[in-house]
């Protein structure tokens, strides 16, 4: 067990929004090496959950245990920084975090902030840029002249530069075409195999369900399901989450199983034919 939420409440001071952003009495644990999909409608609390994980916000009450370090409402910034350096967070829009004159500078940023000197930071940045597949001739480019796809990769590199134990992603596939998605999934798989724990908030269930070991579904600040995706989508879903297209198709031809990938679905269809 690596992270444990103990009866965490988070009250958001929402006033003009009809959606409340609060989280209610949340208890769960996250094991190291897991790949988790977090789903739910807008305002269900899934983004708040990510922010709590990165200690960008603190529990109103309750506590979170990060590998032995306990964080609660009154934890000082110094301790939070210590926890945060184990996390990489990729936000939905890369434009909201890129600012440096060059790609390399931008990727170095988190490494410098978390105590590396310039030489170390530069070495780490180059390494991660290679792993992610950003060509060397782009390293000295301005971040503002990149295509949207490249910007996103640079943002991911910027989050991964410290080789974080935990990678948090907010709607990582939003606005991407299929080939860009496949590119991203390769990167995620690579870091997952290296031992990173990945937690992705996404409504792109078709893309992520076949990959993850665990899915957590939020509704109105509470977890309503937390299980492996096959178990979750084998039950009829509530109106706020759609099952993967593969499952809907399986149901429409009378299959009882829960295939999450097209491969599995094809197998199932062939099985009844024989």
């Amino acid at each position, binding site marked *: 067990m690596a992270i444990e939420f103990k009866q965490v409440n988070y009250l958001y001071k929402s*006033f003009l929004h009809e959606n409340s952003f609060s989280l209610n009495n949340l208890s769960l644990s996250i094991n190291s090496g897991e790949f988790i999909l977090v789903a739910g409608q807008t305002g269900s609390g899934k983004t708040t959950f990510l922010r709590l994980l990165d200690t*960008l916000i603190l529990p109103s009450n309750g506590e979170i245990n990060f590998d032995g370090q306990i964080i609660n409402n009154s934890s000082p*910034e110094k301790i939070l920084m210590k926890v945060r350096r184990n996390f990489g967070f990729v936000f939905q829009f890369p434009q909201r*975090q890129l600012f440096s004159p060059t790609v390399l500078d931008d990727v170095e940023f988190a490494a410098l*902030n978390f105590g590396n000197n310039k030489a170390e930071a530069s070495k780490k940045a180059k390494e991660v840029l290679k792993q992610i597949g950003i060509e060397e001739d782009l390293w000295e480019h301005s971040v503002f002249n990149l295509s949207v796809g490249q910007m996103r990769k640079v943002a991911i590199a910027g989050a991964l530069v410290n080789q974080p134990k935990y990678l948090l992603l907010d709607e990582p596939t939003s606005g991407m075409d299929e080939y860009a998605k496949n590119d991203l999934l390769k990167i995620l798989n690579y870091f997952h195999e290296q031992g990173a724990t990945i937690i992705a908030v996404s409504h792109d269930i078709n893309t992520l369900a076949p990959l993850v070991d665990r899915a957590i579904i939020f509704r109105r600040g509470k977890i309503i399901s937390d299980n492996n995706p096959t178990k979750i989508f084998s039950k009829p879903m509530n109106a706020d989450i759609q099952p993967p297209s593969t499952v809907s198709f399986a149901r429409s031809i009378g299959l009882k199983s829960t295939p999450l990938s097209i491969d599995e679905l094809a197998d199932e269809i062939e099985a009844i034919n024989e």
Partner: protein
Amino acid sequence: MNNIFGRFLPTDSLLGKLDPRTKIVIDFFFVIILLFANSWLTYGILIFFVAFAIYCSKIPIKVFWLGLRSILSLVILMMLIQLLLTAPSDQSDILISFGWLRISSTGLINSIIIALRFFLMIFMTTVLTVTTPSTSIADGISSLLKPLSKIGLDTKTFALLISMTLRFVPILSDEFSTIVDAQRSRGLSLKTGSIVKRTKTLIPMIIPLISVAFKKALTLADTMEIRGFIDAKSRTSFHQLKFQKIDLIVLIIFTVISFSIVYFSYAKL
């Protein structure tokens, strides 16, 4: 999403029905009248007036509290300055003395008054912006400034600018909090380091804000152009301002209160 400036909350309240001009005029003169208040009685009247306005707005009180919180640190700073810099008028005025530090009851009262003035002002402006859509505020200002268009001032463009600003302040403030979080997640710390280091932390926050604002502005300009916007002068207005009986009544009540404040402030009751 802590900034409540410019966020309109539709309710079915008396204040929502008022002509925006009435609310703007009252807000404007309220700030002036506030300067006249100089006694517990005059402040009492104003507090009562503001409380009554909040009650009539049907807006939950926590909305006002949130509006206040965003400037609370500023208010506390001003209170402290008053508290520390007000010299005691005589020996009996000193409340606490600790070395060179002397806190006087005059200073204490002054700092409370400062805070009170701020709170009342913020509450009144919040009543205006939360009960009135930004476009109506703009229409109201445009209409009030109409006499100036005779001397060549482009009041319609001015009004549209105000309404756009009111609309985009909250959006950009939400964006800004996302940007700050994105950089904090990369180890930017706003709470540690020297002043120089902390000033430097502004760069990773300001540059993305400018880039996002620029992008939003371009999309917005496209959207306006596609919907046939040429210039603000050649437009009609959906909101027809109607000055009703209720506006007259509210204005009369406010005038009476204003005069009583001025009167009592000179009468020193």
